[in-house]
């Protein structure tokens, strides 16, 4: 069956005065209908740029240098402006980090919602308003009729992100790209919003690409994980497997850096009183190389404890390892 989204060998570069930096390097993944994928990695790993390039919205001086993004069989990297406009916000929606910034401060929430609907569907104002109300109820906004006439500043942070999600849902898209949707919210609200996203994806059978650096959030929500480092995917596979027994040393380092309970299986609140193993949080030595001097060979070699000669000469490719998972590392079988 044709996957919903098929990204293959996607490469995005940023043009500088005389060179070009590679922000996304040869990234490939697929997403089936209704599947949820987490893109994780440190800041600057190329997660967001990957997200934007799916919609062909990399802003200058960035450009898609190669590869293809097949969405429902259409290559978005080569589509014309009209096709793209038809897909953006209609078939694929995007949710951003900071809901304060993504809503236009001078337009009411209702105006912004109705405008989105009418940009993609031939409906009257009344019908559009009905759709908007319906979606607001879906994201559990109380008294949506009144809320429709209010401005973004009259909502709290969590409410605003709900509105943003409702806007993303308006045209019943088949894929939502969420770029760090909970980073700007406080922890209790984060969980609420993630639950809501998960619930909506399941009930509407929507695909989700969740871009985040929060492995906890990813493991809650997604089925697949792709770990990115310096523009490339270093490990990809089932969420449970990747989080459970990471193959790539970078993924291991990331997971080691998470605060954890002694009992891995259950980190619920019930265990708060239970004795814990006290340990220092792991730290990956060094920091991610800047895009202008990614080391030769494996981009992770200067921080990797397993580093051997081959790692400094040959760039490892993302290949299927023993348990059907993919990793880009010479040192893992």
């Amino acid at each position, binding site marked *: 069956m044709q996957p919903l989204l098929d990204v293959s060998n996607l490469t995005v570069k940023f043009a500088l005065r005389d060179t070009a930096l590679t922000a996304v390097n040869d990234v490939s993944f697929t997403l089936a209908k209704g599947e949820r994928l987490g893109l994780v990695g440190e800041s600057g790993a190329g997660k967001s740029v990957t997200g934007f390039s799916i919609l062909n*919205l990399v802003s200058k001086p960035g450009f898609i240098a190669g590869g293809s993004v097949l969405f429902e069989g259409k290559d978005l990297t080569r589509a014309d402006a009209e096709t*793209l406009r038809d897909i953006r*916000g209609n078939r694929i*929606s995007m949710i951003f980090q900071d809901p304060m*910034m993504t809503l236009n401060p001078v337009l009411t929430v209702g105006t912004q919602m109705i*405008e989105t609907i009418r*940009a993609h569907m031939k409906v009257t104002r009344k019908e559009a308003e009905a759709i908007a109300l319906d979606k607001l109820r879906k994201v559990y906004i109380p008294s949506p009729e009144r809320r429709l006439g209010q401005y973004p500043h009259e909502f709290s942070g969590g409410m605003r992100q709900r509105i943003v999600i409702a*806007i993303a849902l308006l045209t019943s898209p088949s894929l939502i790209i969420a770029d760090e949707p909970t980073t700007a919210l406080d922890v209790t609200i984060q969980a609420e919003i993630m639950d809501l996203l998960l619930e909506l994806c399941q009930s509407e059978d929507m695909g989700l690409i969740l871009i985040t650096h929060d492995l906890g959030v990813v493991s809650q929500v997604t089925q697949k994980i792709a770990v990115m480092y310096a523009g490339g995917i270093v490990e990809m596979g089932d969420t449970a497997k990747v989080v459970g027994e990471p193959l790539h040393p970078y993924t291991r380092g990331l997971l080691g850096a998470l605060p954890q309970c002694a009992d891995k299986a259950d980190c619920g609140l019930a265990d708060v009183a239970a004795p814990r193993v006290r340990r220092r949080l792991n730290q990956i030595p060094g920091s991610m190389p800047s895009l202008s001097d990614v080391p030769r060979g494996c981009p992770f070699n200067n921080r990797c404890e397993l580093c051997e000669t081959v790692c400094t000469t040959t760039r490892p490719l993302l290949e299927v390892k023993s348990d059907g998972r993919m990793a880009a590392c010479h040192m893992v079988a």
Partner: protein
Amino acid sequence: MAGLFKRFRQSYFLYSFLRDPVAVTSFALFVVLALSALLAPVIAPHNPFDGANIDIMDAETPPLWKDGGNPAFLLGTDNQGRDLFSAILYGMRVSLLIGVGAVAMQACIGIMVGLLSGYGSRRLDNILMRIADVQLSFSSYMVAIFLGAIVQMTFGVGRYEQVAVPFLVLVIGLAEWPQYARTVRASVLAEKKKEYVEAARVIGLRPFRIMWRHILPNTLTPVLVISTVQVANAIMSEAALSFLGLGMPVTKPSLGSLIKSGFQYFFSGSWWITLFPGVVLILLVLSINLLGDWLRDFLNPKLYKD
């Protein structure tokens, strides 16, 4: 409607306005001036344009409180016997009309150009902004003399009177639109980097719609502020042009042409013909400028006075 009024009464805008005595005073002054200009045909004791009412024998009557003052002419008369008070009211009407009209024209051209320049491609931006620079390097008086000559040629000096108002609106509007274009462009450049614009693109809206519906309303604050200053400037430009004889003809005087018509009698003792229109002009421009200042302070969130 009642709700809107209630919201206005409770708004911070009104509160802050009422707490600023300068703003209240200048607003009151402006309202008095604007109303008396607007209602000139009702208020004015004489119709200064009606030849039948004017008696040359009344010429250069001094103001009421001076020796030889005539109770019929509160502020005296000019060299042709027109009641100066009435002439000022009518003149202010012309001045305000030209001021507001010219600013409307500047705003139309300037906002369009600014939006296109800020949101469009770099190439378009360069072209439009260079045009604006060229426009700014012409003095508005030069443009007025040049266009004035053409207009008077085509319409004839006699009919110039009828086209004088639209002509002045055009000249002052053309001369000053780059102010708007630059202001709008600057705030468009700042706004278009914001995430809500990105979000609008992600939603799949058309560039024109993003420009018009999303960016423009967010740039209106500075536009509002310069509009007040520009009205005052336009009124002054008009007065200056009229004073130089390039603006309103004396038969249909604005404040500027009134000042001019009295100027030659100034040293022969009839100071009132020039002085009173001048004072009114100053009050008008001053009240608009003070209001503009207050508006700028009010709309600038970085300036909390107390």
